[in-house]
């Protein structure tokens, strides 16, 4: 098909950036800016899921693992920064006051190391995991269940190592963020702006990946893995790249989640948290560029506002959302939008199945 306005998505990202970075800080209260910051973090993970699942067909049910790795890297640094040089975090004093800082904490005193770890730790873990699984051609439901089991295992591991990780209660009570006082409103705005900017960067990376040959191979792998193999490509490599990119996005999202929310616990990376990350992606449109991010923000907003006015109701809404979207609009709201769009421009029958092609 012909390439219609290839720069259109870029304009969209630009508009989105203006909204997030200029309009939002000027209009919303600090409470909602902070909330939006939290949604942005989840949206980063969602953009990654969109790539891996929507484009690559890998139902990643364990993104909590990478979200958690990024988050705990950041949280360990902030905890140490709050404790002050040479001192133990409070919770460690509780269990073993005279013991040393566990060796794996030590490097997180360094700001540079923390930043590198946030990006590379999820990447390394995803590479090893992805290589092992994709080379063995583990896919579909197997992949989904295994990735979820790993999320559970990591959550239990953290819960049970209280002295080393803070356990079930997690890490909280951070006072500083790379030298900035977290309680200061201007600094909160800065943390939000960083999160929002990183979300924009994630969208740009996703946009670029989708346009590249890799992006085309990824979709091809999703739709017909065997044919890709016959054409001389290794589908495992293609999937691996998308999986690693998704992991890094989740890791970065998790890292920014920590200073914005102020607490990270194993519950945020366990099975149900990992599944909830999927909700927004499904709603927005798994295969589209903007769908996952906007869907994640919408679900976050729904939880914040509906959860307040009608607590039990929100659970029903979320449940129905999973059911109705999957049943009736598997392409998410993005597919509805693009269908309307294409019909308006030149009437033709709506594309079948998951009509993400139109958005290209």
């Amino acid at each position, binding site marked *: 098909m012909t390439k219609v306005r290839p720069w259109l998505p870029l304009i969209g990202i630009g508009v989105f950036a203006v909204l997030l970075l200029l309009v939002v800080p000027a209009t919303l209260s600090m409470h909602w800016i902070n909330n939006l910051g939290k949604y942005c973090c989840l949206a980063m993970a969602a953009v990654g899921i969109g790539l891996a699942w929507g484009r690559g067909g890998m*139902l990643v*049910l364990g993104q909590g693992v990478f979200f958690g790795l990024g988050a705990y890297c950041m949280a360990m640094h902030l905890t140490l920064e709050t404790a002050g040089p040479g001192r133990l975090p409070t919770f460690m004093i509780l269990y073993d006051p005279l013991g040393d800082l566990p060796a794996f904490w030590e490097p997180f005193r360094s700001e540079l190391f923390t930043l590198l770890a946030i990006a590379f730790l999820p990447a390394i873990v995803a590479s090893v995991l992805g290589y*092992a*699984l994709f080379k*063995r*051609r*583990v896919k*579909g*439901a*197997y992949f*989904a*269940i*295994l990735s*979820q*089991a*790993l999320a*559970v*295992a990591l959550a*239990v*591991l953290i*819960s*049970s190592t209280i002295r080393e990780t803070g356990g079930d209660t997690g890490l909280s009570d951070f006072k500083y963020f790379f030298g900035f006082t977290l309680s200061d409103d201007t600094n909160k705005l800065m943390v939000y702006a960083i999160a929002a900017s990183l979300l924009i960067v994630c969208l740009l990376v996703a946009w670029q990946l989708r346009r590249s040959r890799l992006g085309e191979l990824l979709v091809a792998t999703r739709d017909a893995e065997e044919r890709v193999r016959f054409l001389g490509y290794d589908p495992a490599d293609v999937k691996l790249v998308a999986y690693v990119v998704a992991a890094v996005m989740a890791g970065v999202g998790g890292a920014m989640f920590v200073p914005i929310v102020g607490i990270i616990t194993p519950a945020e990376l366990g*099975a*149900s948290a990992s*599944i909830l990350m*999927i909700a927004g992606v*499904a709603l927005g449109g798994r295969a589209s560029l903007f769908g996952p991010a906007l869907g994640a923000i919408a679900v976050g907003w729904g939880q914040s506002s509906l959860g307040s006015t009608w607590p*039990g109701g929100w*659970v*029903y809404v*979320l*449940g*129905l*959302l*999973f*059911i109705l*979207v*999957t*049943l009736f609009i*598997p392409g998410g709201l993005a597919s509805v939008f693009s269908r309307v769009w294409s019909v308006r421009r030149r009437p033709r029958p709506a594309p079948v199945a998951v009509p993400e092609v139109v958005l290209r």
Partner: protein
Amino acid sequence: MDALIAPLLNGSAAGALLLLAALGLTLTFGQMGVINMAHGDFIMAGAFIAYLTQLVITSSNISIPVALPLAFLGAGLLGLLLEVGIIQWMYKRPLDTLLVTVGVSLILQQIALQIFPAQGVPVEKPSWLDGQLDVLGYEWPLRQVFTIVLAILCVTALAAWLRYTSFGRRIRATVQNRDLAETSGVNTRTVDRITFFVGSGLAGVAGVAASLIGGTNSQMGTRYIIPAFLVVVAGGIGQIKGTVIAAWGVGVSLAFFADWTTGSMAQVLTFVLVVVFLQFRPQGLFTVRTRGLT
């Protein structure tokens, strides 16, 4: 030797409960390819049915045997409802059944929370399960023996049903080649429905067993769902004997790790062990050659 007996027996009982939870999945997931995340909540439904039965029949000696078929029926009907209402439109998108049933699971848990708002409900154990069995010096609780007996009965019944009845033959035919089965006059829609009914019903039976071992509350299903799926995957999809061995293996490894380390580490190590195992045998312990499943 003595140190090994207790974890071995307790692990076998834990494995039996896991097997009961996973057995239904070998049908709905293994044979039909549906990833039913609400399966755990059907277990919960079974447990609540055991409680409701005790409200009517107060003697737990009678109520538990009565509750078993009722739970099978109740959970089975829930499953049938799910199949007719939602799943039947989704056989061409197996991965999406996971998302749909996550939604169903959320709703079922919230409904249970609103019907049974208390701190969970008590399910009384029959007094004929009081006491222990002396096995080489270890006092093995009878309740655990009961779980194992129940699991063996369910597995035998299911295997016999699949092997020797005409329904069983139709199910196997549908799994192996749906189109050919249809042309041969098998009503595959009916087969789907019955398979789903039986698979979900088995979750109800598991629920009765679970209610005798732990707490009965709206969240109890979430405890079983992931281990159960893991067991089915490790056993080899659609393979009852694989599921039996995998469930037993997971149960025993949980017990031994818990004996050597802590309950938490046992869970971590067992999960990692299963994932590593699947690395070497991605198809699970046993494989079935079909055209229907890829």
